[in-house]
């Protein structure tokens, strides 16, 4: 579903933000991407969703190159940034309709999906209010519903659990599992190692722009906790 091959991003001519990153996310995977602040997680994620230009390598989504066929890639992908900047002066429902129009989702599917996810996140009653009146968590919920409206094959999330209440975080995890059971894939960055350990089947650890550990959860942890593995790998202890 997602193949990142030899991805390298160089800033200002010589500073390597990401160096020869290789990641493969298959259909059905819930893939965690972990690392320190400034390790290169968001830079990689932004390149995957076509927001950031990159220096070397190739990124393939569902058989299409992000560089040469960006529209094909975007049509099957959903992206939620770490701090989603929604249009504050739109109501929740106006925003979701905008996303629905952008992905050309028909009325019936749109209505059904908005209702389903808005009910799950318990936000249906507030959809008529301006987004500027929402709390951070509510904005995050609207962004998630917007990302699900076109039933993406690949969902890319940057720190998706920040600001969500425990119930909403649980709901999101359920949605991720449900998506993967249907053959989609989820690729997300997180600092919440417990969540990554329980939720994901694959993981990559990035440090200083380089992948320092990668594989299935079982291969990587091998009897240890993910926290121990992460701290060992990144030499914090």
């Amino acid at each position: 579903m997602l193949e990142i091959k030899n991805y390298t991003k160089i800033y200002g001519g010589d500073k390597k933000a990401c160096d020869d990153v290789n990641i493969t996310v298959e259909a059905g995977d819930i893939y965690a991407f972990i690392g320190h602040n400034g390790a290169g997680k968001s830079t990689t994620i932004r390149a995957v969703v076509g927001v950031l230009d990159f220096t070397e390598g190739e990124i393939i989504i569902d058989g299409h190159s992000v560089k040469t066929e960006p529209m094909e890639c975007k049509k099957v992908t959903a992206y939620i940034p770490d701090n989603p900047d929604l249009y504050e002066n739109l109501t929740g429902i106006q925003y979701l309709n905008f996303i629905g129009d952008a992905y050309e989702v028909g009325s019936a599917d749109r209505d059904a999906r908005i209702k389903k996810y808005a009910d799950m996140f318990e936000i249906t009653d507030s959809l008529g209010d301006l987004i500027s009146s929402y709390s951070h968590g509510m904005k995050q919920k609207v962004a998630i519903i917007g990302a699900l409206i076109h039933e993406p094959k690949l969902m890319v999330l940057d720190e998706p659990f920040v600001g969500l209440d425990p119930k909403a975080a649980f709901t999101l995890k359920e949605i991720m599992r449900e998506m993967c059971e249907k053959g989609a894939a989820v690729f997300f960055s997180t600092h919440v190692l417990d969540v990554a350990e329980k939720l994901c089947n694959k993981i990559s650890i990035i440090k200083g722009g380089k992948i320092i550990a990668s594989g299935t959860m079982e291969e990587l942890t091998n009897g240890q906790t993910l926290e121990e593995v992460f701290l060992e790998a990144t030499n914090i202890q």
Partner: protein
Amino acid sequence: MKSKRMLLVKTFLKSTSYRNAVKYSTDKKRKNNSIGNMVAYGIVYLMLLVYVAAGSIGLSMSGMTSAIPGMCGILTVAMSFILTLLKSGGYLFGFKEYDMIVAMPFEIKDIVAAKFIYMYVKSLPMLVVMSLATYIGYAIGEGFDFWVLLIWLSLTFVMPVLPMVIASALGALIVRMGSRFKHKSIVQTVLIFVVVMPCFFARYFVESIFKEDRLADVMDGVANSLERTKKFLPDVAWFSKAVSEKSVLSIALLIITTVVVFELFFIVVSRSYRKVNSRLSSGTAHKAYELKAQKQNNMIKTIAFKEFKRMTGSTTYITNVAMGEVMVLVVAIAAVFVKAETLIATVTSGAPLTPSQLAPAMPVFIYFLLGMVPSTCCSPSLEGKNYWIMKSLPIDVMTDVKGKILFNIYLTVPVGLISMLAISYCFRSSFIDIIMSLVLITVLCLFSSVFGLRCGLKHRKLDWDNEVEVVKQGSAVASYLLPNMFASMIVMVAAAAINIIFGYKLLVYMALIAVYGLLTLWSWTAVKKYAKR
């Protein structure tokens, strides 16, 4: 793909419209603010209508009706070009929701086009008002003709596109060049000034190219200038010919050129769009900082420093606020090197006035440029999502207010004093004239800082999507800019007229100092009220 483009435009417009806020907000204060802002805009447009119509009726009454289409065209071209150049960087590149929009299935070409169309639609009310106002004078001179009105109004919607596209292309080029440097904002700001300054002074260049002898009459000078400027701007010439001769060829030329340039621009810009935005949004931490002993500073000065860093960190903000300062410095440099008669002839389009007659009006002229948009006007809204920082710190609201005022004083007073000294040197002013003009310009700068803050606090808007909304087209700026500009013009003329007719130069200085001093106090009272709101 056209529908995707329009979907974006509709969303951009809706997401910044006061109407949406009024319709859906459950917050009564916000609703009232939005209604207040709409009313403020209505008043500002009405003032603009009256001001431009007065100029056009003046031309018509002087028997120069044929120059009015040129006036309309030049006003439209100049305003759309300069305003677009100043804001295109902020609108087309590095906007807040860039990640969200670019990650969605929109063609880059459509995103750029939608941002451009949004910018165009936002400028339309002002341009339509100016166009209608100029038509009033034309209709008085030539008589009302439905077809002329139809062509006039239709082309009003076409005319701004070409200068806006050219300004956007220049803006894109500036952003692209600036994005290669470490200090992107500073490089972009310098490049914008390099492009904008000649535009502001273009009229004088045009006049100097064509000047054969002294202009005998000011009105003739204006009409001649309009005719001459048309030679540099083919779209203005096409517009003039279209309305005055009902020329189908001119209409076709204007429309076809506009459409071709419009489409070409988006194809070219979209090619490097992602690369430029990547450069703008990327950067790595330096990691070589050495922690040294830190100094404790006075809080008001600290806030003033914070305001300085805020300004220098944003190309949009600095070009808007510092434009007047740069123009004043140009005037000051010119004053040192040219004769007083030349300076007066340039500023007054050749009016036969002496330095002594104009002396009390000069501080107001300098203030007209210097106080165009004070930093205090934008600063309260620019806090945006960072507002919580100041609110949560144990800083008295009046300390914050004083810090903002202090920064604007740092920005304007030294430039004002230097320019007044330069003009005094040029005019060979008397000692008392120099002292009075220095006091007056200081009072005017203080007034501008405090009155600007009054408008900034009264119309504070924190939930903006793009800082251009509050820096260039916020209601705080609108409610400051136009009334202040018109009032300054009236005061400038009145000061010179009273001095010429009655000869009470000292009294004029003192009256102006007293009036602006009182206005400063009145604004300060309002600042205290709005700051604590």
